[in-house]
């Protein structure tokens, strides 16, 4: 009987925990409410199956508990029942998958008019780049990265001159403006994630990845690195401020452009890079670079 009670307790307890748990998704701050809806649908479908199987098992353990001399029913197969169960499971899968694929189609289809900006990841900090007045981001090359040119912008590309560079500061984005986030890493894998936005994507060195979203409420949110990137992974944090268009514009005005920052750095040729550990945590491993 203990097993019967335990099974019922696990079933009921799991549902109770789900309902009363203080730990649940943060209040959403982007357009991806459909993702939360898909999660809810999945909870309903799988929750019903979970409760049904658990209670059926509890019933079996109680009803068919061992009795000396009792014989189990000898019933190797029941094709009809198995077909029914296959069919019902298939329906459940379709109910979960269909909305999921529709939402995914939205997720991979960047809307016309989405504003582009770039997130650049490196061990262990975030930097950001906005296209300047021309609305076009300049080309970059890892090999061009130096102390004077930390973003590795191509100095010969006119599109890059007016690019706005944000280093070691908060990211600001305007409310209700769809944005396409271009993601670039100059060292290892990272992942740009703000839990309130629900959307994330890895940064992969050697390529530019992307995702899009629309901020729907103002506030300041934590940015976390969500792909293990070395010993300082957990310190790779940032903040994003969602604000009204006018406040955003004022903030952007104050940030330096590439042309300005190069002028400030002077004409020094740059004699290679120093070893910097920017994450705050001690770099205990290796000590030297790999090569």
């Amino acid at each position, binding site marked *: 009987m203990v097993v019967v009670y335990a099974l019922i307790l696990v079933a009921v307890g799991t549902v109770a925990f789900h309902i009363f748990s*203080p*730990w649940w998704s943060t209040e959403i701050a982007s357009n991806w409410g459909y*993702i939360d809806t898909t999660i809810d649908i999945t909870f309903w479908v799988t929750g019903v*199956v979970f409760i049904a199987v658990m209670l*059926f098992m509890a019933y079996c353990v109680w009803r068919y508990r061992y009795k000396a001399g009792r014989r189990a029913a000898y019933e190797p197969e029941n094709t009809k029942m198995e077909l029914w169960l296959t069919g019902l499971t298939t329906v459940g*899968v379709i109910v979960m998958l269909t909305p999921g694929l529709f939402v995914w189609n939205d997720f991979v289809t960047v809307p016309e008019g989405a504003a582009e900006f770039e997130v650049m990841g490196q061990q262990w900090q975030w930097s950001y780049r906005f296209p300047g007045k021309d609305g076009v981001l300049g080309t970059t090359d890892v090999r061009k990265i130096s102390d004077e040119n930390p973003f590795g912008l191509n100095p010969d590309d006119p599109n890059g001159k007016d690019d706005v560079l944000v280093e070691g500061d908060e990211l600001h984005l305007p409310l209700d403006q769809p944005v396409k986030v271009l993601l670039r890493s100059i060292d290892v894998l990272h992942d740009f994630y703000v*839990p309130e936005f629900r959307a994330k994507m890895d940064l992969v060195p050697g390529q530019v990845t992307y995702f899009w979203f629309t901020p729907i409420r103002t506030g300041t949110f934590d940015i976390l690195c969500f792909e293990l990137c070395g010993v300082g992974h957990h310190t790779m944090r940032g903040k994003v401020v969602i604000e009204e268009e006018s406040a955003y514009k004022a903030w952007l005005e104050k940030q330096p452009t590439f042309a300005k920052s190069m002028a400030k750095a002077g004409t020094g040729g740059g004699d290679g890079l120093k070893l910097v550990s920017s994450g705050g945590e001690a770099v205990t491993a290796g000590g030297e*670079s790999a090569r």
Partner: protein
Amino acid sequence: MAYVAPGETSLVPPAEVAEVDLYHAKSWITKYVFSQDAKVIAIQYAFTAIAIGLVALVLSWLMRLQLGFPDTFSIIEPSQYYQFITMHGMIMVIYLLTALFLGGFGNYLIPLMVGARDMVFPFVNMVSYWVYLLAVLVLIASFFVPGGPTGAGWTLYPPQSITAGTPGSEGGIVLMLVSLALFIVGFTMGGLNYVVTVLQARTRGMSLMRMPLTVWGIFIATILALLAFPALFVGAVMMTLDKLLGTSFFMPAMISLGEQLEYDGGNPLLFQHLFWFFGHPEVYIVALPAFGIVSDLISVHARRNIFGYRMMVWALVAIGALSFIVWAHHMYVSGMNPWFGFFFATTTLIIAIPTALKVYNWTLTLWKGNIQLTVPMLFAIGFIVTFLNGGITGLFLGNVVVDVPLSDTMFVVAHFHMVMGVAPLMVIFGAIYHWYPLITGRMYDEALGQIHFWVTFVGAYTIFLPIHYLGFLGVPRRYFEMGDTSFIPESAATLNAFVTVVALIVGFAQLVFFYNMARSYTKGKIAGRNPWKANSLEWQTEEFPPGHGNFGATLPLVYRWPYSYGVPGVAEDYLPQNVPPDEVVTDEGPGASGA
């Protein structure tokens, strides 16, 4: 009149080839150390796997102490924490679960269950174990090289796995890759043995559709492993070349901590594809033997035929085949072409259908049974609960948009621990208790077994259920500490402390298991022959426990499937596979029916 089940006909084909004489050990060393007997090799595999598994258990305590009490254990540094999680994961998945299910249970049970005297290539089988042991030793050695073992996460994603800034990126990662390559070499020798033995060495009458599901599960899992491990092998070789010779398979032009590296043109995603082309079938390499074994545990202890045997076999085959076209569901947010998401979400959710059917059929085997709540049965029920829970959360992660917020959160950690950590371990414990009398000739202590079950089952569920909800909240995995994060409430820290305390209790409760096993080996009640009244061949050997060569002078002949429990008209509630039809004792007396 006896009921004739599918696969239950009386025909036994004539012998096609004469029996080959078996290798016989001549000395103590060749009998117990460099042994070619699959049963001894199985025990060697099991002891080694469990020993290294205990290292992984201790590592999990250390990481739980850090997560539960982040400011208390100042001796644990970030680099060590990342080394703990990496080695814990790798040991559990590869060196414990894979080795124990295939090398341990596979070696012990395949020859006995299919009616063979041994594996078909006993010498290769022996070498398989020693190469596995070498792989384990190389893995342990990585703890002692400068810089320590790799802390790149068990997925070993480049570039960070081989660049400065990651613990163990000098010596540790190289030893890890060498150890994996050795493991794969050792496994391949064992795996070929298991497959050929199942295909070629079954006794007369043991058609494929009369094999116990345990053998089916291990058989399909071995085929998966033989096809999947080569992807990991080439990945490991390529990464070793990148690290030691400066090739750029996985390495693009990049900076490392402020310094330009000479790599150029490689692609980190290539490694992820290779890794998960191995890594996803790997989940089923662990799960399918568990599916098979638990089917037999449930059937024997519920005294009822497994429900829907043919469906169970085809579900194993279908899951095995599908497992090769779902790998990129681990990579939805990896930066691969996002349009792949449609395909991989669809295949992933399709695989849920045969998997769900297996769960239904296990519960339907309990239905109308005569359920004996022995320790193996308790663990089997514990498996169904944890596997059901973990399988369901897999539907969240497989459905591509739901994975976007949840990937790399603690939800993923909770999911895979439930489904491929706790659930297979439930089966392993159940199986050890179930076959303990076969291996030692003695019974375990029932009361200690019950205590072990309840603490382990309730504890493990209590640990991993709430961790899912930290994932919904947005707590990332692989974080040394959360620091100051606006969306994480104080209560999350309390929960983490609670989980750590439960994890320590569950960990220490395993001492009850080890004590029970050790004590019962000499003090346990002598088990009579076939104490569970089971049908499969391993319990029908002449010598009990089975000796060298497994069976007596002649190999058993098989007349029916192994699930003839409660057959109407038969006097006993079980009917072993090797009882000839004319010797079946029916209600009317011996030999009266043609069962």
